């Protein structure tokens, strides 16, 4: 038989609401306190780089373009830096297209710049499109102290000492064998890259979970409903207390 007593109905609904929201309210209270004291807990300094989390936030790991040359690893991983064995040596617009080994110089061709490096990986200088690098240069190949730049339709001879560039129509591109296929970067260097890669701070994650934004618009709507239910919970609690007072007085 259903109870028609309003005070009893009120208490039943207060209990139902309280039990349904129990876990969520505990979480909101703890996350709220954590966010209030975020600087003290250094939540913004704690980086999370879990691949599922990064993918959820739309931060996919960029591909690594790595080449082994003269026992050195030259690579970039989409963060606009050229690395040689773990050290960033120059800006490099992705992708790293090709590398070549000259007599005393290593060459690395990024999307818009050719970098000249010493044999131990130090940057000598850079030669950009603004300096005269052909815009559609796709690969490079070295022969002695001469570097050949290969475009879709032509081959250029590049002097790394004078930075002089001239067409080399007699050179057969097929005979040059440029290095253009990236290799798999060793785990140790890849892990080093991951340390500096894009990440989400714990503060952002807690804030997004607290507000419901982590689950998109649906999450925000759920949190809005939770807010309304908390208001109802307070009102039903207050009404229960008043009716209890009345019962005591009677």
């Amino acid at each position, binding site marked *: 038989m259903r109870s028609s007593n309003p005070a009893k109905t009120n208490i039943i609904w207060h209990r139902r609401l309280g039990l349904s929201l129990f876990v969520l309210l505990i979480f909101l209270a703890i996350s709220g306190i954590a966010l209030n004291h975020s600087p003290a807990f250094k939540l913004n300094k704690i980086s999370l780089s879990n691949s599922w989390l990064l993918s959820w936030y739309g931060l996919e790991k960029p591909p690594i373009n790595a080449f082994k040359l003269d026992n050195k690893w030259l690579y970039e991983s989409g963060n606009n830096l050229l690395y040689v064995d773990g050290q960033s*040596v*120059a*800006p490099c617009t992705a992708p790293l297209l090709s590398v070549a080994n000259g007599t005393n110089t290593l060459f690395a061709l990024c999307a818009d710049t050719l970098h000249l490096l*010493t044999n131990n990986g*130090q*940057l*000598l*200088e*850079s030669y950009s499109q*603004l*300096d*005269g690098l052909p815009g559609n240069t796709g690969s490079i190949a070295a022969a002695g102290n001469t570097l050949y730049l290969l475009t879709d339709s032509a081959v250029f001879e590049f002097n790394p000492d*004078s*930075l002089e560039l001239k067409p080399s129509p007699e050179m057969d591109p097929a005979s040059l064998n440029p290095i253009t296929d990236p290799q798999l970067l060793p785990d140790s260097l890849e892990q080093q890259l991951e340390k500096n890669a894009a990440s989400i701070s714990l503060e952002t994650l807690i804030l997004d979970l607290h507000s419901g934004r982590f689950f998109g618009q649906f999450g925000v709507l759920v949190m809005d409903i939770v807010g309304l239910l908390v208001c109802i919970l307070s009102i039903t609690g207050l009404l229960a207390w008043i009716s209890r007072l009345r019962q005591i007085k009677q």
Partner: protein
Amino acid sequence: MFHSLLNKLSRKVIFTGLLTTTLLASPLLIAKGVYQSGPDFVAEVFAPAQPEAGVLWFNDDIRQQAEKILGHRVLGLRVRYHQSGAKTAWILNEIGKEMPITIGVVVDRGKISTVKILAYRESRGGEVRYPAYMAQYQGATLTDRYKLDKSIDGITGATLSVWAVNKVAALALYYHSQVMSKPEAKE
């Protein structure tokens, strides 16, 4: 009659709105870009003379001083320049806010004769490339504390770009002094 008047009025309002939007947006639209290539800049500033290309290798002193002027690490082991007599031209890059600005600087007998923005890659602050602003650098020399001896007026909204140009101008004057102090330098 009333409708035709209303149509004319609405056309005028739309035209004025479009014109105002275009005028307001134009500085933003044309802020980014490559204005001149390095070889073209060199050919222009030395014409009709044919400059010689040179390389300034960084020793510890030069690197240290260059890093002090720029306030950060200097990339590379050498820098290219072009020279004709006591006149040198330098093409240097410096970050404005986030992206590098490519700046051409010509130094003649220890004084700046030309500063020109060759490529500007930031979306805002491109006003530094205007000739009226660049003219301020003409005649500037380097003080004992490796600063420009002239006060350069800033540009609202382009402060970081102005600082970048100031640093590059001072750096070119310093590099020029190093080239000229070489025994084989031509005065």
